[in-house]
């Protein structure tokens, strides 16, 4: 089963995150666009979604809103870690399970992921 799906349009951020999290033993895949974000989650059925707030074509807030509104309640409650440039006060993050502000320390991300997948 896939542990993590990361939806992030910045390839160098996604690459760094994938390196450290796969090194920790998590199975992880990437999706680089806001468009089709919910479908990517539905297809991958990850245990955790790392979702960037500022995405092209469809924002992370819109993806999260659609996910939470899905009639499949088990799917709708997929844990989401939101990456945001605007901190905890950013609009559209209230339905996320956790929020991590950019730029973040790798160790903070690792600890948060460990806690959310425990």
């Amino acid at each position, binding site marked *: 089963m896939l542990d993590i799906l990361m939806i992030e349009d*910045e390839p*160098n*951020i996604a*690459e*760094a*995150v994938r*390196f*450290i999290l796969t*090194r920790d033993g998590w199975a992880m895949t990437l999706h680089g666009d*806001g*468009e089709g974000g919910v479908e990517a989650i539905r297809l991958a059925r990850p245990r955790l979604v790392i979702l960037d707030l*500022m995405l*092209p*074509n*469809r*924002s992370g807030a819109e993806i999260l809103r659609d996910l939470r509104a899905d009639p499949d309640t088990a799917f709708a409650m997929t844990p989401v870690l939101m990456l945001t*440039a605007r901190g905890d006060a950013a609009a559209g993050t209230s339905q996320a399970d956790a929020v991590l502000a*950019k*730029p*973040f*320390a*790798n160790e903070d991300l690792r600890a948060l992921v460990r806690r959310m997948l425990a």
Partner: protein
Amino acid sequence: MSGRTQNNVLTGTRIRERRLALSRRQADVARAAGISPAYLNLIEHNRRPVSDDLVMRLSEVLEVPADELLEGHEEVRLAALREAAARLGGADIGAPETALAPDFLARFPGWAAILVAHARRSEALEAQLVSLSDRMRQDPYLLTTLHEILSAVTAIRSTASILADEAAIPAEWLSRFHANLDQDSQRLSVTAQALVAYLDSFEAEDTTATPQEEVEAWMGAGAPPLDRSPDLASDAARAMAGAHLARMEQERRALPDATLVEAAAASHDPLMIAARLGHPPDLVMRRLAALKPAGFEQVGLLVCDSAGALILRRPAPGFPLPRPGDACALWPLYQALAAPQTALSHSVETPEGRRFLTLSYATRQQPEGVQGPVITQAQMLIMPPDPARAAGPVIRIGPACRICPRKTCPARREPSILATA
């Protein structure tokens, strides 16, 4: 009655102050004014009302312009002083002795004027601060550029930490991370320079909001009464807002709310609504943007003159509006200028992938007759996308060239400050 007594309190005190300033005896002034010294004494101590006629006579005797002793003049000053006291007083300072304001104003007019000027300057500076703060929060140049910088910093920080902290990184990954670092540091450098250049440009500008921005802020606040809106700081903005209100009222009378709500419930096509009601499309479009009846809650409206200057901006959620003076040349609004009296419908897409349906319509008028100039205005109603046209042609618009990330654009007039563009 109390107002008159209060006004006379002011007048009496000022008469006394003026007489003392001239070093004249009470009896001499009273005689010259045709009243008894005892009566003048009562007036000066604010125990008797003063008629306008007597104020005029005393003003002649005391060699002072009559209006300086007149009640209205004082009342305005007193109101300004009380307003200043209310603005500058507070929990830290304590409440001023407002009951003594008339005496203070009469005895120390210079200090009172300084206090009022200080309060007004303080108010203007606060309004400017709010305006700048709003601009910083909403300015798409800043938001976009800061997002670029933050993304680059995030990538650099994570990558650098990996290189510093992780053991036994495979050579292939090492090479990739070094390349990423180089790429992101260059991107950071270019974007940071662009940001500094942009912020420098603020110094060359008047940092207060333009009258148009003030009017937009006023409209955004729900168009409160003009004399109670902190957004309308300049006379020009108040004049523009007043003219806007007058035109809105005129248009509301021409097309009442109830009529428009009923018509909008029957059709979501502004042209069909216009045809059904027998009104010109531009009136219907403006009224829809102002009233936002059911089905049109998310609409925005842009209006430009024939020079392309935007003269009214009612933003639609998600539609990229740059600072006043900037615009995307691909907005269908400008196509309408070339085809007056013809409604143009387009699907547009923002760089973020948001789609909107636009309806653009230009009008031509000759308000000074056939010999007068032709005044052309175009307006564009911005509406949510039409699902039936999802597969149709789309115009890929932007906010303004400077912050537009599109790499290729036939209408670009200056480079983007975004390194990714």
